[in-house]
């Protein structure tokens, strides 16, 4: 039982880390109906920029706002150069544009900061909580617990932003129909600029935590792969859905790896979340918290 709990808690905490990346996707999709394939690249860009600035002699506290500025500029430029000319185009066109953006951002990050791997120290030790280890013989990461707290704060802020603020409501209107939103005077470009900047901020938070957890290297772009089943499960338009989806995916993949894996040769947590998401799609295509779309034909 103790081991089961350990696996479950470890999975839930990993799930929160996935949810952090998934949040960036939700933001853009919720506000513009665009599936931003470049979110993983933005996470990498943010982490590499922070680590690069720290390595060049700046303190972390100076590097963070500078990276934030870089992320906002990147978001605004993306809106202006890539998305604005494509307003009212089909969703797949916008999606393809973000694929192009992915490769550009990955290349840009390495062109600026080089291909070297770097470490990122946020001052949070990634060690098991001593009290739990001594009293319950359970290894629960102190770092992951703090990351979960940060994710909870972020989700609360974003949920308030979307439901309680004027900008948030306007963003939801834009997501429903670009042209209709434009026709009633909603400043589309302005709003998209804001949401890409906010997505840049979320990418920065995810990049810092993942970068400190795994090191700052190109493979940070791969964490995006962990976010996809989370989105399918939680729904593409729900901020709390990203968290719940993350928790379900994290816990189930760890339990599956430990309890099913040994019977089928192991290494199943790479594909298990996708199978789970696929099964879920068959039952509830819009995800747990996604908006149900009803079309009359």
């Amino acid at each position: 039982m103790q081991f089961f709990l350990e696996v479950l808690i470890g999975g839930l905490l990993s799930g929160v880390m996935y949810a952090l990346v998934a949040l960036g996707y939700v933001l853009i999709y919720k506000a513009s109906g665009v599936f931003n394939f470049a979110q993983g690249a933005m996470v990498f860009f943010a982490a590499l920029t922070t680590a690069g600035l720290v390595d060049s002699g700046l303190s972390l506290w100076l590097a963070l706002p500078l990276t934030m500025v870089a992320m906002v500029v990147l978001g605004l430029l993306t809106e202006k150069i890539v998305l604005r000319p494509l307003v009212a185009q089909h969703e797949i066109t916008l999606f393809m544009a973000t694929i192009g953006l992915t490769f550009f951002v990955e290349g840009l990050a390495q062109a600026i900061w080089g291909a070297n791997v770097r470490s990122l120290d946020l001052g949070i030790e990634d060690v098991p909580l001593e009290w739990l280890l001594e009293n319950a013989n359970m290894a629960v990461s102190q770092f992951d617990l703090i990351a979960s707290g940060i994710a909870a704060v972020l989700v609360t802020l974003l949920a308030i932003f979307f439901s309680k603020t004027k900008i948030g409501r306007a963003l939801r209107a834009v997501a429903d129909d670009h042209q209709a939103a434009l026709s009633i005077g909603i400043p589309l470009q302005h709003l998209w600029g804001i949401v890409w900047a906010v997505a840049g901020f979320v990418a920065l938070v995810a990049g810092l935590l993942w970068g400190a957890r795994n090191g700052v290297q190109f493979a940070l772009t791969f964490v995006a792969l962990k976010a996809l089943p989370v989105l399918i499960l939680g729904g593409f338009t729900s901020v709390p859905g990203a968290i719940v989806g993350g928790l379900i995916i994290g816990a189930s993949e760890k339990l599956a790896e430990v309890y099913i894996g040994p019977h089928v040769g192991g290494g199943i947590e790479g594909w298990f979340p996708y199978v789970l998401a696929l099964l879920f799609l068959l039952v509830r295509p819009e995800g747990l918290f996604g908006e149900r779309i009803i079309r009359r034909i």
Partner: protein
Amino acid sequence: MKFINKALVAAAFATAALSASAQEQFFPALSYRVGPYAAGGTGFFGGVIDYLSLLNAQGGINGVKMTWEECETEYNATRGVECYERLKKSRGGATMVEPLSTGIAYGLLDRVAQDKIPMTTLGYGRSDAADGRVFPFVFPLITSYWNQAAGMMKYLGDKEGGLEKLKGKKIVHLYHDSAYGKEPFAVFEAYAKQYGFELIKLAVPHPGNEQQSQWLQIRQAKPDYVILWGWGVMNAVALKTAQRNGYPSGKILGVWWAGSEEDVIPAGSAANGYTTMTFNTPGNYPLLDEIKKKVYAAGKGNLEDKSRIGSTYHMRGVTAAILWTEAVRKAQEKYGKGKVMTSEQVRWGFENLNVDEARLKALGAFGMMPPVKTTCLDHEGSGAVKVQRWDGKSWKAVTPNWVVGDKAMIRKMQEESAAKYATEKKITPRDCSKEG
């Protein structure tokens, strides 16, 4: 008249250029400087180019200068094959090829045999390719995965006071879930059977950026050692997750692809005390000083960051280039000094390499790598490894001497596997007694 004069001058320049390129030995560099594995690629190919530049600065090999052209593969097998096809006939033809990628190497296996271009797979690829009778154009130089795995067992046995002391111990093989990670299965299983330790195999799905479930299983199993057979991000994540679960880094022994600065720096303090295999002894050597003096001081160094000179990947690149050019030198001894060698002549050179201690001393690389002596039968040439430990700042050698596992057992396995491959591919093995 003016036009004719110009044409004659142009023709003279063209002839001069042709004769110049005719005196150059061409090396295609299937490098990767962008993408997920760029950190390793820049170091390795930087080392290769630095050594070739040094040779040129010293006058080349008996007057023949080295030339090279890079083609970006991004470690992608399809791109790697494209690069090979593009460069194999460039500048008079490729001398040899080294893809530094198992995927690309597998893609080229049949092509190099058909094109008669030798391919080196330094420290990776098929371990059975050491059998030169079946793989005449492939050279897994220095040490294959199987001999490395045997070296690991020897080292762990020595730590315990002898291989027989491994009886009753638990060893986890934490591996990248790919053909690469599964390559040493047969060796570890053979040792486990012979010496009576429990072998627990745990797979990590690619890319390995999340390993909590594997390390919880390790925590539960309480193994005496963990062998980390990882690649890329998997290595740093393994070290970090081990720390997160309270497993000591000193009990983790990595494969040499988990033993570079790029693997430990992202892991921070979690990597302190971690040990890995290597086929280079970390440290500084007169050869590296020469590179600094004659290549970097002249502004021709390949690494942007000079602090990486002598790093694991850089030194590995220098080592590779030493062996390539020594094969050319050897071929020149047989086919004509001062001449550009064909790929087939260089293949002969690779098969008759004898980079002994005296030669390594002359090169300023004594101790940097084990002596390498190849034959028609043995394309590996050494089988020796070392163990190094990360002290938080740099790698330090743990074993003063080269470690060699059960070579006879490994050779038997290589021959059996190569014979099976020959049957599958309908290859008639060469008779080495008839080779000159």
